[in-house]
């Protein structure tokens, strides 16, 4: 287990690497968007604008597949668009690089006690996927859960009916959905990074033949695929959960 720098380790642990990477992801996303929006042209889109339009279109199609009516689609579209790009960038950040420093001296106020450092062999990650952190992905999942229920409560009658109307067992879903929603993302990204770390740790045969290299390449491709897919899966599940609780309009899903 790597030793992350943690603020308030005893009472209210905040993973500084994770939050820092979240903010970095946000900055990358906004810079990317602003670059694409620099010269918006309604009639002659070109370059990055095409890509942005394609992403927006993709998000809109996702929302249309899961939302009951056009109004709900328009409501969810900014969130779906942001979530898609944000998670894509976040997932890929850990693939591009993970940076860790080797720390020998314990820093107790950051939670880097001597014992934890020893367990992690002094490795302190500073650059990592924010989505490789269970608390962060669960946070996003719970946020989606809260949004979906808040939206459902705008129509209380249908909202309370839908818990019991097909089967009361559906209530279990209300607990398992956010859990699996968050854990799926975390598990995929974390597994990708962990295995990559292990592959990188394979010793060189005879001191110079990198037998882990082909394995690393294969795993990199696979992780890139998984990262992209997971961004899509998380976003479409978000649309689905929120769409399930959008009772306005004709015939919810």
């Amino acid at each position: 287990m790597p030793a992350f720098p943690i603020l308030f380790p005893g009472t209210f642990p905040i993973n500084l690497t994770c939050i820092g990477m979240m903010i970095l992801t946000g900055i990358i996303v906004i810079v990317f968007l602003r670059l694409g929006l620099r010269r918006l042209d309604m009639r002659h889109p070109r370059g990055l604008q095409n890509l942005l339009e394609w992403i927006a279109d993709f998000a809109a199609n996702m929302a249309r597949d899961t939302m009951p009516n056009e109004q709900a689609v328009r409501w969810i579209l900014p969130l779906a668009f942001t979530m898609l790009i944000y998670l894509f960038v976040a997932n890929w950040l850990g693939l591009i690089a993970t940076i860790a420093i080797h720390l020998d001296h314990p820093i107790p106020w950051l939670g880097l006690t001597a014992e934890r450092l020893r367990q992690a062999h002094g490795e302190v990650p500073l650059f990592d996927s924010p989505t490789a952190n269970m608390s962060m992905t669960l946070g996003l999942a719970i946020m989606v859960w809260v949004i979906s229920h808040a939206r459902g409560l705008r129509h209380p009658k249908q909202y309370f009916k839908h818990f019991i109307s097909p089967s009361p067992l559906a209530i279990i879903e209300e607990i398992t959905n956010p859990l699996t929603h968050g854990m799926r993302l975390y598990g995929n990204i974390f597994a990708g990074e962990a295995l990559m770390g292990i592959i990188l740790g394979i010793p060189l045969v005879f001191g110079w033949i990198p037998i882990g290299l082909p394995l690393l390449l294969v795993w990199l491709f696979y992780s890139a695929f998984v990262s992209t897919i997971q961004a899509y899966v998380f976003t479409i599940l978000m649309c689905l959960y929120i769409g399930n609780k959008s009772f306005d309009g004709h015939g919810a899903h």
Partner: protein
Amino acid sequence: MFETGTFIVSIVAFLIMFLIIRRYGFKPLADMLEQRRQYIERQISEAEEGRAQAEALLAEQRRLLEEARQEARNIVEAARARADEQAREILQAAQAEAQRLLEENRQMIAREREEALNAALREVADITVRLTAKLLQQNVTDAVHEKLLAEAEKKLGELVC
């Protein structure tokens, strides 16, 4: 392991970043897309409107052309009718004129004939009287002469008529 602080702070951080991205990253794009959608919609409706207008204009043109044709036909028809009428009138007038001239000439001939006859009668009467006077030894007074002349004229008139 689960970290409460990371959990809560990540939600807050994500929401803040979401708001920023929506305001500065998504809104211009969405506005542009909406603008484009409206532009295309307007173009389509304008094109449809233009086509409908063109069709209406075409129909109007056809109608006007048909009307003009009909009118031309009417005018030609009317002109022909009037020409016929005029021709008939002229013919009638000419006939009447000829009739009138014929009548006039006939009357003139009759009058001249009468006058000539009268003059001849008068001459004959005069000659007769003069002959008679000569026969009666030239002793006739003017009064008797006039009386004889009148008598001769009367007799001759009876003779002629």
